[in-house]
């Protein structure tokens, strides 16, 4: 398969919420660390803009999927830490299976085309 690696991938609607929830599964952390984690883990393909990160965090907090509190960062500074709530865990499971079904469906449609080309 001949794939050209894009330098950066656009976020699909709603995927940022899922990525935030997944990132927080590893433990509570602050906004900056969440952004960096998504960036690093996606091998820099996903760039989280602050203009969508913080609205997303506060939206998830409003929905009760994550909860925030001020804690000391590992450098000893006060930061707003987010942690996954029980409701958020449930949401993560639901969103994740939805995403997996979607990407499975996409693969089913895209892959036969690859074989035809080969």
């Amino acid at each position: 398969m001949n794939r050209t690696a894009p330098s950066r991938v656009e976020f699909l609607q709603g995927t940022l919420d899922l990525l935030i929830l997944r990132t927080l599964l590893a433990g509570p952390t602050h906004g900056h660390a969440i952004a960096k984690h998504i960036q690093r883990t996606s091998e820099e393909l996903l760039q989280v803009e602050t203009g969508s990160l913080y609205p997303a965090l506060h939206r998830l907090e409003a929905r009760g999927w994550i909860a925030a509190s001020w804690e000391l960062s590992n450098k000893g500074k006060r930061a707003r830490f987010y942690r996954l709530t029980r409701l958020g865990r449930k949401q993560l499971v639901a969103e994740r299976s939805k995403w997996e079904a979607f990407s499975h469906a996409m693969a089913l449609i895209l892959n036969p085309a690859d074989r035809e080309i080969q």
Partner: protein
Amino acid sequence: MNFFFRKLLWLTQRRDKQAELRRELQFHLEEEAEERQERGLAENEARWAARREFGNVSLVEEATRDEWGWTRLEQLARDALYGLRQLRRNPGFSAIAIATLALGIGGITAMFSAFDVVLIRPLPYADADRLVMIWDDMGKTDVTSRHQPTPAEWIEWRRLIHRSRDQLYG
């Protein structure tokens, strides 16, 4: 605590949350600058680079604040306030508009109330369609000669009515 109550609570804490958000974004900037400094940038440069990457701080703040409240509801309230200001600026026009509406609504309400009672709502007792009016007729032809019966007459008529019922309704 659900979505609605959390947002209601946030509405009361708006000023605190505003300061908190500012601190949160400030922390993000500092963290980003420190990270760049660790990678070898000078302090000043690192701070500027962090700022550049962050984008417009007040825009981020605004987008985040939008998630706290009822943006649509707030817009509606603003529109209503704007309308009120316009009314106050032009009192003559407002008075005429309000009077027109008041008369229109009042007139329609009065008409419908009468219509409802007279034509739609059934009378509040059984067999309303068998209702009759009974009066005492002094003259033979003149309508004004009709009189309402006295209680004694009424009682006597009621005794007789059992016999004349068929004639009355026949």
